């Protein structure tokens, strides 16, 4: 089961700074290639999409395939010009969505 998304966003930045965001979510990322003891394929169940929005605008996203490791980790950059809220979204193969938010103060 997926749970507990963890995100690192700096609390403060200067206008125009390019900040680094690190994200991690606990998820097995079952690839659909593995077989169980009876030789039957274990059905695929992965996080297939990640998206980051800042004050309502999408700034980064990723389309994820089964070749991404368990507990998918993503690191990317965003240029910030104003204070606001980052929203992060992970979409599971079964349709569940996991979200979290972080605030940043830009001065």
């Amino acid at each position, binding site marked *: 089961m997926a749970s507990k998304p963890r995100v690192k966003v700096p609390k403060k930045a200067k206008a125009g700074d*390019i900040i680094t965001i690190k994200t991690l979510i606990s998820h097995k990322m079952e*690839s659909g*290639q*593995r*077989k169980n003891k009876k*030789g039957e*394929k274990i059905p695929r169940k992965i996080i297939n999409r990640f998206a980051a929005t*800042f004050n309502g*605008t*999408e*700034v*980064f*996203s*990723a*389309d*994820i*395939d*089964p*070749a*991404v*490791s*368990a507990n*998918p*980790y*993503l*690191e*990317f*950059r*965003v*240029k910030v010009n104003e204070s606001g809220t980052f929203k992060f979204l992970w979409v599971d193969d079964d349709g569940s969505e996991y979200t979290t938010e972080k605030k940043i103060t830009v001065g």
Partner: protein
Amino acid sequence: MKITRRKAMALGTAGALFAVFGSRINRAHASAEEIDAALKAFAEGAEIGEGQVSLTTPEIAENGNTVPISVEVDSPMTEDNHVKSVMVLADGNPNPEVITFNFTAASGVATAKTRIRLAKTQNVIAVAKMSDGSVHMAKNQVKVTIGGCGG
């Protein structure tokens, strides 16, 4: 022709064996055609050039289950001139697609890091599509000691 029980058993076994080994052969790794098709679909008709893309991978990955990779594309990242997306492919995995990063002008720098699975020693390919439609790629070989696809 009358199908006896013995014949039916033999046929069934042959079929099952074919199904098992047939699928093994197909799924062992991505074919060159699959890679080509994925690249063509991504490039949308543009010619794929070299340079501008730097892909950082370990030379040797001891554990194929989690191989750190990092992609950076040289671009001013303005509204008119930025990197739209970067697709990562692995040519020795059962499916070549690994991940596609979608950037925006708000990214500031077109760089991203993640951890991927590699079934065996193979090439990792990063292709970047710019806002003007041009496409660039980079390729690195990663030697894998223990594969990461299970089963």
